[in-house]
């Protein structure tokens, strides 16, 4: 008799037995993700409750949409959303531009020693925490003793006090984000270029392509999938602020918060300082839904344009 192909549940069971070791190896990560990522998702209901410390998330009384109502009435929602989106888009666009450009330039440089050194030094700022970056900001822009202040003073200009000057912060924050992240991104793109088939370049050389043509017609098209992946991954967090950057530089400075208050900062502040669990959770839900909606929408648009570039 012919052995019949196993189907349905029997196939599933035999697969479980066959791959038992692989499944065993997945257990730690699966348990971790369930406990520390999926379980908190169920905790979202706290946004619809009047949180009471003794009763906890699941037993506190329901209040419907009250928390969201207060959040809406506070009129904070629009500036917060605008700031978060604006800063993140600036970070993504400028970041990608510089990362890709520097990776291409590094790839074209023939002097091996210079290439290695440049790569190492550009990566250096990635190694420090935002606490240290904040210390650097003080050393450079501190009103009385900062390096920049002294330079301006010596040149006969008027010093800028960055703790009260709001217009400077959008530029400074973008700069700090680029300072810390460009090196990492550059190496990611450089890794992609290095992994590419060098024969294509040789063939282009034989055909007489010059450097610009090589970059335009070979390197950049080749980098597109990596750029798409990086862009999509960044877009998933477009409503999530870089908490460290904003907390360490802006912190609780009321004047600066007008131009640089982002959702994460607000959620943290409302939870820790004001102890308003309900409103903070409501803002968190708002943020999560915005992030999710953005990535799903963009992914489905990309799916129609070019399915290769979708994230999922």
């Amino acid at each position, binding site marked *: 008799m012919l052995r019949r192909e196993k189907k349905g549940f029997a196939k599933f069971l035999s*697969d479980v037995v066959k791959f038992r*070791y*692989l499944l065993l190896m*997945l257990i*730690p*990560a*699966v348990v*971790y*993700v369930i406990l*520390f990522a999926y*379980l*908190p*998702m169920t905790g*979202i209901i*706290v*946004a619809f409750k009047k949180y009471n410390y003794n009763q*906890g*998330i699941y037993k506190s009384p329901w209040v419907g949409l009250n928390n969201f109502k207060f959040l809406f009435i506070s009129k904070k929602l629009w500036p917060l959303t605008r700031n978060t989106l604006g800063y993140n888009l600036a970070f993504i666009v400028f970041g990608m531009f510089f990362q890709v450009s*520097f990776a291409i330039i*590094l790839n*074209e*440089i023939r002097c091996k020693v210079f290439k290695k050194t*440049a790569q190492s*030094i*550009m990566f*250096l700022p990635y*190694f420090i*925490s*935002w*606490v*240290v970056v904040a*210390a*650097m900001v*003080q*050393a*450079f822009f501190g009103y009385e*003793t*900062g*390096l920049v*202040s*002294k330079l301006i003073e010596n040149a006969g200009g008027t010093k800028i006090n960055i703790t009260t000057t709001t217009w400077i912060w959008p530029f400074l924050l973008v700069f700090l984000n680029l*300072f810390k992240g460009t090196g990492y991104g550059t*190496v*990611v793109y*450089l*890794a*992609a270029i290095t992994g590419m088939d060098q024969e294509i370049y040789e063939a282009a050389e034989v055909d007489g392509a*010059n450097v*610009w043509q090589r970059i335009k017609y070979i390197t950049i098209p080749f980098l597109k999938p*990596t750029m798409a*992946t990086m862009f999509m991954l960044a877009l*998933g967090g477009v409503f999530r602020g870089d908490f*460290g950057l904003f907390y360490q530089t802006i912190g609780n400075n009321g004047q600066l918060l007008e131009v640089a208050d982002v959702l994460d900062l607000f959620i*943290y502040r409302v*939870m820790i300082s004001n102890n308003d*669990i309900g409103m*903070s959770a409501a803002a*968190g839900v708002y943020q*999560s839904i915005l992030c999710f909606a953005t990535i799903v929408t963009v992914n489905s648009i990309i799916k129609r344009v070019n399915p290769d570039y979708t994230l*999922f």
Partner: protein
Amino acid sequence: MSSVTLKVSEGKKKTKTPAVTKQRKIRKVDEDIMNAIGIVILSLVMFICIVPFWTIIVSSFRSESSLLTKGYSILIKDFSLEAYEMVFRDPSKILGAYRNTIMITCIGTFCAVFMATMTGYVLQRQDFPWRNKISFFFFFTTLFSGGLVPTYLLNTKVFGFKNSYLGMIVPLMFSVWNMIISKTFMRSISFSLTESAKLDGANDIYIYFKIMFPLSKPLIATLCLFSALAYWNDWYFCMLYESKEHMFNLQYFLNEIINSIQALKVIASKGGDVSMTGITLPQETMKMAMTVIATGPIVLLYPFVQKYFVKGLTIGSVKG
């Protein structure tokens, strides 16, 4: 037949050679221009990257009075060890913070690398029937999250993170991002290795440890560095979960020093006696010295893993 084609190609080569060299000369010129522009741009970038570090280090070796009157500078002026003497007058706190950070970094990095590579290995196996579904199960957590409030409440009330070292270790223990990097890297290792090992009777755990692990050195070096960096530079989870000073890690300790001196300054200047506080504590240089002490070791780690870097950091798609 083959000899004919050979001849033809040889003939082509001969006729083409002068043209190629001519083109090569032209190409050399624009390559030189590209190199020159590149070196100028990258030198500028390197300058911007290195100056803040240099300034911090130089400033930590200056006397407070020099710093206050002449301001921060990239030049070495008025060398003094005053700040370091002050910081190490009572080293017990710094050493405690160091001990915490080193302990957390070691335990955390070990777990993080282990979990990322193990999960990545399973999910890149072509014969594993549920790989796409489980990949998405992990990836979904980066798309949607419960947010700070539920996470914080659950971690403090249910899992007991408050004032426990767990609060600083567990949140950074598994990263989907690192898992994806592992998956991408291990997929580039030929699957036939796994297949032949299976034919020889090796089980999957054995294959992972004895075959994949030794072949993944660049990946492991990269992941070690990233995880170690994440743990070493963490101050956020320490701020969130720890309230006892002896449990602070290095970065949060540094954060406290920077901010409490600031607070001190504000109070002192309100009383109208700024000069007094300036003399008693070399505040500015102490901050800089602490920054150097807190950052130094992790930066020194970099040269050792750097050579693996470009190889280990290829990012692939989430799918498949």
